[in-house]
């Protein structure tokens, strides 16, 4: 394992100066666009993502068959999002994969029984990529869904975790930590219900450590949920102040 870089210094600091359990700085904003039904902007460290939601509207085309809600996602990564210019923003395998994962995680959160024969479109655009792209995209999508007023069971949030050489779990890993070769575990969870909607892992590590890494990622999810929740409240106060009802909150 020592072939890769040490992710945690002996002084207990990570490469960017965080302690193992610390998240990156999170900034988020709801309702950044007017055209879509819901939108959000999310920043987690240097990873910056825009999400827009259209719907629910009547399902079109072939998708009309069956009674279920169709969740249609699109994941795209701006060509300028990485330090080396990307060739195509979407359609590559990675984007396709992320799109499926987004659908999977969101379908666990959306109260689909309320929207039969309808479709919800979720567009995610990564403006700047610095690790945990999927997790931040999902968080932004959640905010956009909330902004669109779509009923959710709960906040669905994602967080990543890794493992240092000394087997200390690390929360919310950045790009440099990702490429330094540690294992990367992504979890999308419903934190209050303590349910995991989606889990993905790259690189192998021993089963003994899996539990602690999952727990770390879950703790990260809970922390992110709190941040998102307060952002939603703040947003409501802001937009509700015109109608004068926000003060009651």
């Amino acid at each position, binding site marked *: *394992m*020592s*072939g*890769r870089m040490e992710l945690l*210094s*002996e*002084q207990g*600091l990570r*490469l*960017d*100066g*965080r302690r193992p359990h*610390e998240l*990156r*700085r999170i900034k988020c904003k709801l309702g950044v666009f007017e055209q879509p039904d819901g939108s959000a902007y999310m920043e987690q*460290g*240097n990873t910056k993502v825009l999400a827009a939601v259209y719907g629910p509207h009547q399902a079109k085309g072939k998708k009309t068959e069956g009674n279920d809600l169709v969740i249609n996602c699109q994941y795209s990564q701006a060509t300028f999002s990485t*330090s*080396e210019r990307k060739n195509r923003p979407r359609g590559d395998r990675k984007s396709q994969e992320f799109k499926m994962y987004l659908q999977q995680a969101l379908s666990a959160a959306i109260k689909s029984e309320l929207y039969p024969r309808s479709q919800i479109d979720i567009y995610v655009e990564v403006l700047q990529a*610095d690790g945990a792209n999927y997790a931040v995209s999902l968080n932004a999508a959640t905010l956009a869904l909330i902004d669109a007023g779509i009923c959710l069971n709960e906040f669905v949030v994602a967080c990543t975790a890794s493992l240092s050489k000394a*087997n200390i779990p690390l929360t919310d890993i*950045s790009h*440099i930590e990702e490429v330094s070769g540690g294992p990367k575990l992504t979890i999308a969870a419903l934190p209050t219900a303590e349910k995991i909607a989606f889990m993905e892992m790259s690189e*192998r*590590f*021993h089963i*003994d*450590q899996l539990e602690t890494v999952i727990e770390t990622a879950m703790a990260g999810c809970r922390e992110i949920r709190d941040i998102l929740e307060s952002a939603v409240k703040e947003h409501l106060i802001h937009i509700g102040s015109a109608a004068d009802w926000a003060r009651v909150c």
Partner: protein
Amino acid sequence: MQTLREFTRKTKRGNILKIVREHYLRDDIGCGSDLCQYCFQNEVYQLTSSHEIKSSLFKFPHYIVLDTNVVLDQIDVLEEDVLHNVIVLNTVLNEVKHKSSSIYKRLNEIIHDRTRNFYVFVNEHHKDTYADREPDESANDRNDRAIRMATKWYDSHLQTSQDSKVFQRSGRTVTRVILLTDDAGNRAKAVSEGILVATATDYVKSLEDFPLLVDKLSHKTFQNEKQALPQYPPHLSMKEILDGLRHKKLLQGAFQASRENYLEGSVNVESYQKDILIQGRNSLNRAVDGDIVAVELLPESQWSAPSEIVLEEKNVYADDVPSEERVEDEKEMLQQLQAAPVAERTPTGRIVGIVRRKWRQYCGILQPSLIEDTTRHIFVPADRKIPRIRIETRQADKLLNQRIIVTIDSWPRNSRYPHGHFVRSLGPLGNMATENEVILLEHDVPHCKFSEEVLSFLPKMPWTITEEDYAKRVDLRDLYICSVDPPGCTDIDDALHCRELPNGNLEVGVHIADVSHFIRPGNALDKEAAARGTTVYLVGKRIDMVPELLSSNLCSLVGGVERFAFSVVWEVDHDANILSKRFHKSVIKSKRAMTYEEAQAIIDDVTQTGEIAKSLRYLNQLAKILKKRRMDNGALVLASPEIRFQVDSETHEPLEVEAKQMRDTNSMVEEFMLLANISVAQHIAAEFTECAVLRRHPKPPMTNFDPLIKAARYQGFEVVTDTGLELAHSLDRCVKADNPYFNTMIRILTTRCMMQAVYFISGSLQKEEFFHYGLAADIYTHFTSPIRRYSDIMVHRLLAASIGADSTYAQLLERKSNEEICNNLNYRHKMAQYAGRASVALNTHLFFRDKEEDEEGYVLFVRKNALQVLIPKYGLEGTLYLKSDKDGKDGLERAKSEIIFTFNEEDHTQRCGNVIFHSFDPLTVRLSLDSTNVQHEKLVFKLVKPYIKGFSVETTTEAVTSANAQPPAKKSKKDKKKK
């Protein structure tokens, strides 16, 4: 809790990229001082007021901040337990890590030693000490500024803490923070910023209590040095080297100095099959053995051949300018070299730059100086590949007859020798303990005592087997298990049994000490064992891999005591066909621990009909069948001269030398160990396709066999080397009636053609590459000696995990980390072997001190100016010079007597008059020890028979010759390293 600032960094990766990374600045990083009243301290105070150093430069208590250059150059000073209360900034730590990993490691060791009070301050992430890189500022300048900023912050931070009334009332002097830096520019800036600053040299000199520390200062330049003329061409700058490499004008490789000729070396370049030859002082251009260098290939017309001349540097003195004479000498040698025939020429180059220095610490002695009371001395390293080193010391008188350690600091152009400084003394010359220490250090064998932490993981004594243990293991205490080992062996790791089953078949069991039961993965004991990798055997001394409690007691399968074992049990028929096998952990009680000799005696003694005798006879029968089967498969029987010393138990000086003997029982034990290893290898490779630890022995490339084929052809034998089987057969055919030792010599030569066997991880290679050439086995591993080899412990763990006897753990299944451990093991094994040989050589020298003996020997090789002679009795190899260096006295005399040897390139013979020396010819030589050079005592071979007038020594005592004239006992020993 956290503030943040972002910063940009540009890196070059072919094209220029802009990389943006977050950089969090924190307010929770403590200053680590017990004076501080503000910082949030999450650790124990590292900087305490209990250690104060008296310095005439700073007459108040102070903490020291080190600049990177001080750490890099003066690590030996830092390692001395003198400096305390040192602040290591993480800027410095990173720079050191980047520049030299070995110094980084040493620095880390100091930091971890809590008694030294070194505190790592993460200034890069502290909100007050972070320095943003300014436009047009170089990375170096920024780091210097960061260091100054941190120093300044520390000083003022502590001032405010010490401003309080409580502190003032206590009447203590205010503690300040000083910066040590050898960079003049940095120093000047520091002074202007009001920082207390000094050079490392000035500071160390100002220490009142430690005057001798000055010796350990590194010298980039010697003081009062007259600016002598440059003696070497300049090195290219790093940029020029990189450009050259990119445009394929230069080649990069590791430099290897020649052991025999100080003006020659070679560079191993990856893209070249042959090493690139480097000849002459200017071409070598200050490269030291091991350095990674940039080489420029010379035009083909200037290519040359490696000289077969042995050239040693004559005595030199510290203030000596190279004399005209010597320069002439060198020129002449080079001319001689370039006259080499075209066919022999190999790519030749010259070194134009150093990519990375691989300087380490060198053992050696001080050369007595001609001038009295000088502080400047010449140090002669024990390793001949290393040039002499100039050092400065004030304690030369004391050090003169001691083995000392010196390290190189620099090698300027105008100095013939590199500059260095004294590190420490090992002990008086000629003392057995000192000499062993030198061997261990030179071969990088970790040999310090086991630390308290390591020992804390040993089982508590008295150790007993609990009911729980019995329940988990198969009880084999009633079986007639016995062990067979060399005499005096205390780390017995294998035992055997064989019994007849009711169905008429035989049950054979190999029981291996269960070391992995005691060494749990990941703890300090395990890490130490992994780092050591192997037990090292020197003559009369053993450097254990695991603490003695385990190696000689709890794990050792001594007779009559209950021990844990890992057993491999086969059911075989009487023709040694394996019908079934099983692995399990067990409890055994060895009935008897025997030596090979005792076991042989029991087998041979027909009156013995006990269970042990029966068991041994069965084993012996089976072993013979197994051996035959193996030979038929193409396993090689190789030979290497091996000897044993009888060592005086008091003085540890060798009393008697004997060649190791092979008995049937040796090969009996060996056969079953091989069988166990192969069985285990098959099992773990099947269970763990990715991460099993295996051992392979690659087939040597055909060209390796050339010298062997040539040598055999002159004797009229054809050696076929296409496959192992053919080689084995053709070796068997090489028998000469008149030269009983001929076959052994051929086998010795074959051994030298072989590659090293290595450990590897099953996932890293294709199945076909697992092959073990020497043993002709498809798959092989080491399972049978866990007390003395770490590889076996790993194999034990894998096997235990696969049969459910033990749990797996993260590292066990990690291919990368296993690979790294394997690399270390391969290195340690090689070094342990070399150390063992060096120890034998040392003892041979001691044995021949004040002795002269005439011995039967054989010519192993014929060289241009010498014969390589093998003395079977001592397993000794040495050089008989036919043309000595011409400035030697002998040479002059010989020149007068006109004894001229002519070397025949064609059939590799030396002729003098009517005497012709071929390879493998028997001769008699007189052995004596040449102690003129205290450091490199060497055995001198002089010819006795065949007698050449004027060259051979006169036979003084007829008796001696006849006593030793009997042909030595024929012996063949399987090469130990492959076991």
